[in-house]
């Protein structure tokens, strides 16, 4: 899973921008994919990736080399995405109160999952399995996180446990519940 050499990392830690560029280049695709699967929205996913790399850069000299670099990177990216989901949720519940809470559960979910999908989002989603992405967006962040790390990023259970700082048994329980919830959500999805 490691894609940059130690030497590049050391140089980036001294503020060498060429070395940092190599790091961005090595991980931008997978972090963008991760962020898009969390946020279902291209513009927001790009912001999240930018925020992640900015945090990585400023914190780089505090990175502890005893841990895998990718573990650290995924932890930061996951935190950035979950923060954004929480903020989105907070804003949505304020809206819901103002509008008297009469909206249907479906509207609520749609609004949560994809604020203003751009044509690019629609194109991207039609190329992929739209219902699966929507169901993923409807999962509670705790389950969404492990499912994305497991199935989209293809991390092992041990790696997920390292990223999230929770025991493997907890990772498994969350994956089980996430899978079960996805099964229910997909069973409810209209066949397109």
């Amino acid at each position, binding site marked *: 899973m490691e894609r940059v050499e130690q030497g590049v990392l050391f140089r980036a830690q001294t503020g060498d*921008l060429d070395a940092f560029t190599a790091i*961005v280049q090595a991980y931008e695709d997978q972090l963008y994919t991760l962020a898009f699967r969390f946020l279902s929205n291209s513009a927001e996913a790009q912001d999240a990736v930018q925020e992640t790399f900015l945090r990585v850069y400023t914190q780089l000299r*505090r990175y502890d080399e005893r841990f895998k670099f990718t573990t650290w990177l995924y932890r930061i990216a996951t935190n950035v995405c979950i923060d954004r989901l929480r903020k989105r949720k907070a804003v949505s519940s304020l809206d819901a109160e103002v509008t008297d809470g009469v909206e249907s559960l479906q509207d609520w979910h749609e609004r949560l999952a994809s604020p203003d999908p751009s044509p690019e989002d629609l194109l991207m989603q039609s190329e992929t399995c739209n219902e699966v992405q929507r169901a993923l967006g409807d999962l509670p962040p705790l389950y969404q996180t492990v499912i994305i790390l497991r199935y989209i990023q293809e991390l092992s259970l041990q790696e997920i446990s390292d990223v999230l700082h929770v025991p493997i048994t907890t990772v498994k329980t969350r994956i089980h519940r996430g899978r079960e919830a996805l099964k229910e959500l997909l069973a409810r999805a209209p066949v397109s």
Partner: protein
Amino acid sequence: MTCEEAQRSMHYHFDGDDHLHVRKARAHAASCTDCGRHVMDLEMVEQGLRSLQKFAAPPGLRDRILEAVREVPQKRPLRGTGGLMTREQ
């Protein structure tokens, strides 16, 4: 083994475990319509997730990131000599 137990144990099968309770669950699902269906549904979930494509970062994103990075200093290490840049977020 009850259906509930079988369905719970079956998730360990999807994790790649092969304990006795997983084998029992598989044997149960082979002869139980509900649990057989449950396994098929979970297989569909896995298939759906694995079929999600991996994206390439949009053009321009890297430049945007590098431009933003130029504007911020790196925090100094938590221990050790550190540098002159001490700005905290």
